[in-house]
C-alpha cells in the first residue's frame, strides 16, 4: 500500500529499494549515507521480500558484487558517498562496458580527498563525464526532495533495465540527511527466477541444453569489434539523450533571468526566486532532474526567447555551469555561483549573486 511517512532521504531510498522489488543491496558504510544500509539491515528485507543485504569489505567489493548479481539478471543496487564512489569507478566502467543494469546512489560530501562529511555537489564531473575509464555514460538522476529519493529508485531501476546501463542517483548530504514527508509507492513484487530467465536472455543463469551460452564481459581484443561495441554504446546514449531528459521549470514563463540548479541547490534557489520576485525581479528556476542526459535543447531554446542571463547555482566551484555554457552557447550571459567544500549557500547569497553577476554584471 502507498503510505505517508516522515523519513530521512537515506531511509526513503532504502525503503524504496525494498518496495521496488530489488533483489540485493551490497554496500559499505560511509557518512553521510550509512543510514541506507542501517535501515535495510533493521528492516530485515530477507523476511519482507527475500531481498539480500550484504555489508561488503569495501566499496570495490560491493560494486563487483553488483556486477556479478546484475550479470545474473537480478535487480541490484549499492550506495556510498564521494570517496567510496571513487573506489567504485572501475566496477562502474565494467558495468557500462558489459551493458549491465544497476542502480547506485552517491550522497555527495565535500572533497577532494577525505574532504568533509558536509554536503556538496562537487562530484558533478565524475557523475556526468564518465568517472571511470573509457567512453561511457550513465543516466544521472538528481533528487531535490526526500520524495524523489524514494521515487527515483523505482524510476532508476526501470531506466537501468530499459537501457542496460548503470543509473546513478546523485544526491547530497542535505537530501540524504533531511527529514520530510514522503508518500511511499506500492510495493512491486520481485521477479521470480522463471521471469528473469524469460525476460533477460543475456543473463548468466546457467547454460540450458540446446541454448547458446551467455557471456558477460567488457573485453574485446579485436579493436575493430571494440569500436563497433563503442558505436553501439554511443547509439544508446544518443537515444537516451533524445528520450529521457527530465527537468522542471518553475516561474519561467515570464522570466528575464533563470537560475539553473539541481538537488538541494535547487531547493535553495527556489527560495531565492521567491525573494527576487518579492523585489520585482522576473526570475525563474530551471531545475535539472537528469544531469545526463542534460536538457541542452530546452535551455538553448529558452535563451532564444529573450532570457537575459542564466545563473548556475551549485555547491561546487563550477562544474554544472560548463554544461549550461555549452547549452546556451553564447546566446545569453552565463555566470556561476556556489559555496563549496561542505558549505551550503543561503537563498540570500543566491539572490545577491543574481543581482551582481547577472543583472548588474
Amino acid at each position, binding site marked *: 500500500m502507498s503510505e505517508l511517512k516522515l523519513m530521512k532521504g537515506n531511509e526513503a531510498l532504502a525503503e524504496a529499494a525494498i518496495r521496488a522489488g530489488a*533483489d*540485493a543491496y*551490497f554496500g559499505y558504510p560511509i557518512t553521510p549515507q550509512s543510514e541506507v544500509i542501517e535501515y535495510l539491515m533493521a528492516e530485515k528485507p530477507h523476511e519482507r521480500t527475500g531481498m*539480500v543485504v*550484504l555489508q*561488503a*569489505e*569495501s566499496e*570495490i*567489493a*560491493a560494486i*563487483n*558484487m*553488483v*556486477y*556479478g*548479481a*546484475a*550479470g*545474473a539478471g*537480478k535487480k*541490484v543496487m549499492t550506495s556510498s558517498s564521494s570517496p567510496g564512489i571513487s573506489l567504485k569507478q*572501475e*566496477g562502474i566502467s*565494467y558495468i557500462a562496458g*558489459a551493458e549491465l543494469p544497476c542502480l547506485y546512489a552517491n550522497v555527495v560530501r565535500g572533497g577532494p580527498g577525505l574532504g568533509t562529511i558536509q554536503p556538496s555537489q562537487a562530484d558533478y564531473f565524475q557523475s556526468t563525464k564518465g568517472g571511470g575509464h573509457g567512453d561511457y555514460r550513465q543516466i544521472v538522476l538528481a533528487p531535490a526532495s526526500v520524495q524523489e529519493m524514494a521515487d527515483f529508485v523505482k524510476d532508476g531501476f526501470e531506466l537501468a533495465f530499459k537501457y542496460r546501463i548503470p543509473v546513478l542517483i546523485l544526491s547530497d548530504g542535505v537530501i540524504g540527511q533531511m527529514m520530510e514527508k514522503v508518500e511511499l509507492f506500492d510495493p512491486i513484487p520481485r521477479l521470480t*527466477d522463471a521471469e528473469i530467465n524469460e525476460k533477460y536472455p543475456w543473463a*548468466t*543463469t*546457467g*547454460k*540450458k*541444453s540446446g541454448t547458446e*551460452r*551467455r*557471456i*558477460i*564481459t*567488457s*573485453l574485446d581484443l579485436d579493436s575493430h569489434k571494440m569500436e563497433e561495441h563503442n558505436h553501439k554504446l554511443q547509439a544508446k546514449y544518443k537515444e537516451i539523450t533524445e528520450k529521457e531528459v527530465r527537468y522542471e521549470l518553475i516561474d519561467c514563463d515570464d522570466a528575464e533571468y533563470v537560475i539553473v540548479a539541481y538537488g538541494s541547490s535547487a531547493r535553495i534557489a527556489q527560495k531565492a526566486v521567491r525573494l527576487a520576485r518579492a523585489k520585482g525581479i522576473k526570475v525563474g528556476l530551471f531545475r535539472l532532474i537528469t544531469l545526463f542526459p542534460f536538457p541542452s535543447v530546452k535551455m538553448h531554446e529558452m535563451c532564444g526567447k529573450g532570457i537575459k542571463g542564466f545563473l548556475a547555482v551549485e555547491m561546487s566551484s563550477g562544474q554544472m555551469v560548463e554544461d549550461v555554457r555549452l547549452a546556451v552557447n553564447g546566446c545569453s550571459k552565463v555566470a556561476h555561483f556556489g559555496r563549496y567544500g561542505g558549505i551550503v549557500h543561503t537563498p540570500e547569497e543566491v539572490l545577491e549573486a543574481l543581482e551582481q553577476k547577472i543583472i548588474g554584471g
Partner: protein
Amino acid sequence: MADITLDQIIKPENLVYTKTKLMTDKVLSYCPGCGHGTAHRITMEVIEELGLEEQTIGIAPVGCSVLAYEFMNIDMQQAAHGRAPAVATGIKRVWPDKIVFSYQGDGDLAAIGTNETIHACNRGENIVIIFINNGIYGMTGGQMAPTTLIGMKSSTSPFGRDAQRMGNPLKITELVAQLPGTYFVTRQAVHTPANVRKTKRAIKKAFENQRDGKPGVSFVEIVSNCNSGWKMTPRDANTWMEENMFPFYPLGDIKVDGKLV
C-alpha cells in the same frame, strides 16, 4: 601396415579419449606447455561428470586466463582484476541454488584481489575458487607476483627477488585455510598424468562440496608453470617447478571437511 586406411582407424570402438563437450572448439590462447589449458579441461570435465553444466556460472579473471570464457562452454562472467570472489559472491547470494566458481591467477587472487579473496573465504561463501599459482604475472610479460620465490628472476626482479627490498612470497592458501569460512583447501599440480588425476579428484570434491551445500569456500590451488614468463622450455619449467616451487608450496590437502589436516 601400409594397407590400413584412416577410415579403418576412426571407429567408435577405437575411441580412447574425447574432449569434454564443455570445452569449446576454440584454439586455446595459452603457450604450448602451459598448465592453464589442462586446468580448464579438468574443471570442465568435473562439471560435466557431475551434471552441473546447466546450473553453473564461472568467473574468468584478468590474467592469461582472461579468455577462459571463450574456452569453457558454460555461462561465464569476466571480472575486473582481482574481483572475481566478489563477483562470485554477488551471483551466489542472489542465486543460491546455482554452482558458482572463480578461476584466478596468483597476481589476480593474491595481490590486487587479496581483500576480496580473504573476505569471501572468511564469510564462508559457498563457492569454488580455482587458483593457478605460477609465481609470476604471465599475461603482462613476466613481472614479479606476490608468489614469486626468493631469488627468482622476473622482469621486475631482474636480479632475483630480494626479500628485504621486495618482500616475501605469500602463501595465501595456508592463510585462507586458517579462516573459519573455508571448508576444503588443497594444493595440487597438473604437470604429470598422476597429478592431473589427483587434481581432478580435488576439483570434483570442491564442486561436490558446493553442490551438497557444505558450508564455506572450497579452494583448489594448482601450482603451475609459466614457461614463457620463466623463460624456460616447458620441460625445464616443469623440472624447475618440482625442484623450486614444490618445496616452498608443498602439494597436498591443507583443510578437509572444515578441519586442518
